């Protein structure tokens, strides 16, 4: 135990004294999440919309004016029946269609609830999402205004309908995606580099000629990174939650468990990389080319796996990140429990065991 503590202390010295390591560990996650976050949640301005007003009364006219007066929307055209919706979208001129139901004013006064349907073109899911939020808030604003002077409250119910991409699949993928990349990078690349650095500097020679057993060296190397990766995952989730309003629907313990599982997978991959590379550079190239690119391209982080050609879809199965992204999205967005994601969890566990087994087998107790 004293040996282990001594070793881990040394590892922490290495990490905290190397500015580059510290930057990769803590600067990059924050920079990445901010970049991805702000690049995706862009503001909307002067978006063209179409109106289908089946009621044509005072209230609808007021609402239309209010919407048209905002900087966010420009009323491009008015259409007369529902069949036209599809065709205006297809022409691509408008991003959304507002449909006021028949007898809008009557419904508002009698049942105190009038319906507006917001149909958005969700081919660009972020824009679609923002549009519906904005329309919603304008309408809410409006109801508040009219309710101020009234004893009875009126309500306008907005009904949002997304065309083409009803689940808004890529919204919020960036937090799980960035988290996956960062955990992979920190865990796999940093461990593989820190192990190969010992080989390169010749200190591995001295470590080998010591009573330290291979697994002690490996665990000593890995332990600080497990610790730091957990901190990292927490920072990313907190940033996602507070800065980008990322929903956290599922169980936090399950989230923590799955994150630690994925960190372990990444670490074992890092150890595997270090057993096959002799220099820090090789380790870095292997981690970057062999891990980062597949994660970004094949994990479904940016490009949906389902729209890839079949061979790539098959290849994507061997990428641990793909499974973790599925897991974490399910937990964060859908509040999934273990009985939904047990399959993905098992796959990750299997991969981890495989990587560790291969690393232990390949770990050299001698120099060559």
């Amino acid at each position, binding site marked *: 135990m004293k*040996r282990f503590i001594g070793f881990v202390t040394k590892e922490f*010295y290495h990490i905290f004294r190397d500015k580059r390591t510290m930057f990769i560990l803590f600067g990059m996650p924050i920079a990445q999440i901010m970049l991805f976050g702000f690049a995706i949640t862009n503001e909307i301005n002067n978006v063209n919309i179409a109106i289908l007003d089946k009621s044509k009364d005072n209230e609808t006219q007021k609402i239309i004016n209010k919407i048209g007066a905002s900087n966010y929307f420009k009323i491009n055209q008015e259409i007369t029946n529902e069949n036209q919706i599809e065709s205006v979208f297809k022409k691509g001129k408008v991003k959304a269609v507002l449909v006021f139901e028949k007898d809008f004013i009557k419904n508002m006064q009698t049942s105190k609830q009038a319906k507006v349907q917001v149909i958005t073109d969700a081919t660009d899911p972020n824009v679609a999402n923002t549009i519906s939020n904005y329309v919603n808030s304008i309408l809410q604003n409006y109801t508040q205004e009219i309710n101020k002077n009234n004893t009875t409250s009126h309500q306008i119910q907005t009904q949002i309908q997304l065309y083409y991409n009803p689940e808004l699949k890529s919204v919020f993928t960036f937090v799980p995606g960035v988290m996956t990349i960062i955990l992979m990078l920190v865990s796999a690349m940093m461990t593989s580099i820190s192990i190969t650095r010992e080989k390169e500097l*010749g200190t591995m020679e001295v470590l080998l000629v010591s009573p330290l057993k291979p697994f002690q060296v490996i665990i000593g190397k890995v332990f600080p990174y497990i610790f730091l990766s957990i901190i990292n995952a927490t920072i990313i989730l907190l940033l996602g939650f507070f800065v980008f309003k990322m929903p956290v629907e599922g169980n936090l313990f399950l989230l923590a468990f799955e994150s630690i599982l994925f960190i372990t997978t990444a670490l074992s991959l890092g150890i595997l990389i270090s057993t096959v590379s002799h220099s820090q550079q090789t380790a870095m190239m292997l981690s970057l080319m062999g891990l980062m690119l597949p994660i970004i391209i094949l994990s479904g982080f940016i490009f949906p796996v389902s729209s890839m050609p079949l061979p790539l879809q098959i290849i994507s199965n061997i990428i641990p990140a793909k499974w973790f992204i599925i897991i974490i999205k399910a937990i964060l967005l859908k509040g999934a429990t273990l009985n939904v994601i047990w399959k993905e969890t098992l796959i990750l566990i299997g991969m981890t065991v495989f990587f560790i087994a291969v690393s232990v087998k390949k770990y050299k107790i001698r120099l060559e």
Partner: protein
Amino acid sequence: MSIQVQNISKSYNKIKAIDAISFEVNDGELFGLIGPDGAGKTTIFRILTTLLLANEGSASVAGFDIVKDYKAIRNSVGYMPGKFSLYQDLSVEENLKFFAAIFGTTIEENYDLIKDIYIQIEPYKTRRARALSGGMKQKLALCCALIHKPKVLFLDEPTTGVDPVSRKEFWEMLKRLQQKGITILVSTPYMDEAALCDRIALIQKGSILKIDEPRNIIKDYQKIIYDVKAKNRHQLILDLKKYPSQYSVFAFGEYIHYIDKNEDFNAADLDNYLKKQLHTEIEIRISNPTIEDVFMDL
């Protein structure tokens, strides 16, 4: 017997690095492997410290077989590789603490063993190893290799790249360690250091040429060596090489070492020859052979 090596051979990609090497080191002995770069010294060290497997032959260190009992050897030897192999980003004290920790001991426990050496670097104990001078780095590395009180100490070219004063100090330290009962196997490319060992093995191109006490090696040397000096040193070497009965000519410090083939060699003849070649300030005298002379002749 602390180290026993029998017919050890090792090849890298079919190139023989060492070829059927055998030698023995007694308990408490300071044994030197003397040879130029590429002679195979480091390979021998790595095989004996269980870092490499030999292709042929067997060896034991501190009574343990280097293949079967490699774990026991790793517990009981100290190893200082040729390349500085400490953590550059750790301070002197942190390095020492780390090595003490991984050997399951503490600095205090074996302080008396490293005291003489550590005292010299203690003023810099908070300095990062990266910022140490060559000599101090070697002292620290030696402390780290000693911290667990090893039975056998392996020092691979510990004085390469170290200034002459530090080199001298380093060897004095080795002598003191030897008195504490530690067996030391040391390698060096410097022939002048060979004389400081109890016994030496002269190695070249992966083979041992000779093993003996340094003074016996010199005593056994039959040939007479002449120190030759003249104003134009470069021309002197060229002219000496042209002398009909020359056996060997090589630069040695400020003199040229000259050996003649014939036993009835007369220094006056050589003097005349050199004068004819227009050399001035000629000086010829009989020299005491050194290990280097022996080595050059092997």
